[in-house]
């Protein structure tokens, strides 16, 4: 897992967007909303990321019913959530240490 940390920004937000079942377009919309339009995932970027995350078993296909017309949804797995928390811990350490800069008056 160490090798996967730090997460890229895109992966970080994709994992966040599938904390509850979400489909591809829903992920793009949620990430865009969370970042105020700063991170707009390209369709190719998202497709590649989903393929890679499913392969790593960080996210999994989720279907509540067998209705085939329903859009395919994805959901984070336990391994995915662990990776996300490891990244969160790393970011918290960064922020905590960043506070030291306050000692500098400039």
């Amino acid at each position, binding site marked *: 897992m160490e090798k996967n940390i730090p997460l*890229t920004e895109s992966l970080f937000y994709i994992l966040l967007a599938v904390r509850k079942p979400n489909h591809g*377009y829903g992920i*793009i919309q949620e990430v865009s909303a969370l970042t105020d339009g700063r991170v707009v995932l390209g369709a*190719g970027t998202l497709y590649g990321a989903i393929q890679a995350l499913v392969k790593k078993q960080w996210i999994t296909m989720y279907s509540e019913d067998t209705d085939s017309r329903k859009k395919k949804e994805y959901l984070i797995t336990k391994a995915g959530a662990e990776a996300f928390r490891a990244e969160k811990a790393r970011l918290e350490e960064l922020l905590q240490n960043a506070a030291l800069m306050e000692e500098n008056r400039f």
Partner: protein
Amino acid sequence: MIKFRLCYHKDDDIAWLNQLAQEGYAMTGFFAGFWHFDTCTPGEYEYQIDLSDSFFGVSNDYLELMRDTGIEYLGKFGFWIFLRKKKSDEPFLLYSDVESKLAHYQKIRFLFKIAAIVELICFLLETLAAAKGIRLAYYVLPVILIIILAMLSTITRTDAIIATLKEQNGEPADPRRRGADPVLLTGLFTNCVALLIKDTVPFSLMLQIAALFLMLVGIYRSRQIFRPWDD
């Protein structure tokens, strides 16, 4: 309207398609170098070309994601996927971060390297055929040579794109020398000339031996270019 154009650098092709869409011609299909166009409102569409995971077919997940994001799937030829979107304020981009752009271009380079190796083997086989006096080989050789040169040019350009992306990503630049090896190219060219003048000039055998030597040295010198497994 049907146009013929070989595609060997996707960035050029996208620019070309966008230019034609601006002039009122919207690409609707591609097959083996033939591009099919319908008329459209000038500037109605923006185009993109993507690379598929597989030579055969394209996954339902991919099609669904494209459809949901307002992207029209026009078709697929080999590994290439042709897409378009109604023009909007946002430019139509498939890859939004450096990491995925890098992976995309590395995949393109990998495929071109494999293709270039295959073409090079074809070239050597045709050379043997030409040396045996098979007439057809004389016409095929220059065609293969042009294809190889085009592929090497694509690999070199893709190398430059990858180097820029790596720099943006804060990765160290690749120290290996890249690009088409001049010795190899000279060898290929000399070989063609030697074959063409074979029946008319007495020293063509010497020339051909020199060409073969240059090609072998060239292949040895460019062994780093032909190392797709590094990607």
